[in-house]
């Protein structure tokens, strides 16, 4: 009796194993994940790419830069999207696998406030003071007497790290700053919160938000391209050095003229003039 039971279990196990293997062996599939800043570009590009190549299936997920790179390290995805360069901690974990870094677009981190805010510009120094809690009323920077609601991004976000580096210069974000988990969450919250200030990728700026000049410069495609605007950064795609041909083709497509047009349509800045 017992041996019969074991036999049945073994057969069932083998069938299950086969099913799992069959799922992972799908070759015409590209998995990407990572920065929500890069997400709109990848999503739009994937749609066009899948239309041109009906056999290929691209899965696009967000999660934040940290998650994209971590999934890359764990080899659960083919392309990791990042809104910052890979850091030391992370590169230590993958030196043996040799990551390929491809800059696919440029972005300007836009500082946004509620559309009724009377403030039109801030200096980097004022921005730093607002985020570290030294300035807490709009009056201090020439606005109306209203409490500043500081909105930051969660720590798995590449925007958070770039913002920390450029603006905060390793001072701490104050304890009572709100930390939201995506660009869209920040944009939505700022749009209906009168005293709010937040930062989002250029591609997420909509009419219901007011974009501030930083040190006198408004974030636009031109000022991001010529580095006049201080809060600019490159957006990257990471792949391993033996990428599936499919993944490499997709990255090449984003770098092509058609792909870069999509980048621009989504509100980001072309990479081309940079090389």
């Amino acid at each position, binding site marked *: *009796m017992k041996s019969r*039971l074991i036999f049945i279990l073994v057969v069932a196990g083998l069938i299950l194993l086969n099913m799992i293997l069959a799922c992972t062996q799908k070759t015409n599939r590209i998995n990407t994940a990572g920065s929500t800043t890069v997400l709109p570009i990848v999503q739009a590009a994937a749609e066009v790419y899948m239309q041109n190549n009906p056999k290929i299936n691209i899965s696009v997920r967000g*999660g*934040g830069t*940290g*998650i994209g790179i*971590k999934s890359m390290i764990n080899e659960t995805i083919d392309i990791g999207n990042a809104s910052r360069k890979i850091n030391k*901690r*992370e590169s230590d*974990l993958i030196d043996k696998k040799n990551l390929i870094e491809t800059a696919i677009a440029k972005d300007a981190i836009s500082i946004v406030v509620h559309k009724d805010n009377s403030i039109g510009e801030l200096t980097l120094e004022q921005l730093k003071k607002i985020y570290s809690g030294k300035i807490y009323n709009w009056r201090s920077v020439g606005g109306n007497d209203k*409490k500043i*609601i500081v909105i930051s991004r*969660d*720590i*798995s976000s590449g925007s958070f790290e770039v913002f920390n580096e450029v603006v905060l210069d*390793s001072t*701490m974000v104050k*304890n*009572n*700053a*709100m*930390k*939201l*988990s995506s660009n869209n*969450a920040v944009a*939505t*919250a700022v749009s*209906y*919160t*009168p*005293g*709010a200030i937040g930062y989002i990728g250029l591609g997420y700026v909509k009419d219901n938000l007011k974009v501030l000049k930083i040190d006198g410069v408004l974030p636009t495609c031109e000022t991001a391209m010529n580095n006049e605007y201080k809060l600019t950064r490159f957006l990257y795609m990471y792949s391993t050095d033996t990428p599936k041909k499919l993944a490499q083709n997709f990255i090449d497509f984003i770098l092509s003229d058609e792909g870069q047009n999509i980048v621009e349509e989504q509100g980001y800045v072309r990479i081309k003039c940079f090389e």
Partner: protein
Amino acid sequence: MNNFKEKIFKGITYTASLFTIIVLFGIIATLFSEGLPILKYVNIKDFLTSPNWHPTHIPADFGTLSLIVGSLVVTTGALIIAIPLGLGSAIYISEIAGPRSKEIIKPIIELLAGIPSVVYGLFGMAFLSPFLIKVFGIPTGLNAFSASIVLGVMVVPIISSMSEDALSTVPRNLREASFALGANKWETIVKIVLPAARSGVISSIMLGFGRAIGETMVVIMIAGGAAQIPTSIFQPVRPMTAAIASEMGETVIGSPHFHALFGIAIVLFIITFITNLITEFAFLKKRK
């Protein structure tokens, strides 16, 4: 042949129950083996009583008090909203409503339990939060108060349906005896039926507490995410679950931050474990 079938069935059910226990102990073991190493970097007093949570800053602060307080504030708020609503509807369905309206109201309340939490989160983000800013004139709509409201609504069906079960198992003759002694409906419900169903009602509240304190998506989306000890309910907070879920993706396995998040998970586990124990005891008492 029958004997063989019986053995197989016994084997399958035995394996299933064994599997659950193994998984549970595996989780507990992982929790403690990954969480306790944080005490190498910070002593337990600072870990539990410092309000400064700056895990990625150099040097890092691993004080979880603000996160624990965040969870407790939001959960307490949710229960304050959910207990009267849940218990009220349970009493109405079980004691007052006729069979017709009972048949309509009960499934509708239970339907609330089937809505995915991310949908509640969206509702809170897109509707409730701007609404609260307009009505109360508060500086931000993503705060402990709005998270409490949404969590409260999520907990109502749990308290309602479990309390209703408890109320309807109270024997008929108790009610009849009460009426016979001249008590009216209100007195019967408050003085006889509710005390008789006490243990079931308490465990429904405890279960609701467990659901609210463990809920993650809603607090990530609505609680605001600021790691601070709130001085008013209209300030943003960062409950423990929100911190774990939104930071785990970024941490390097084995780093102090990673262990700190598991440390928070231990705190959360202990809190829910204690509430489950209380529920368990409430039920044991009932069986006696």
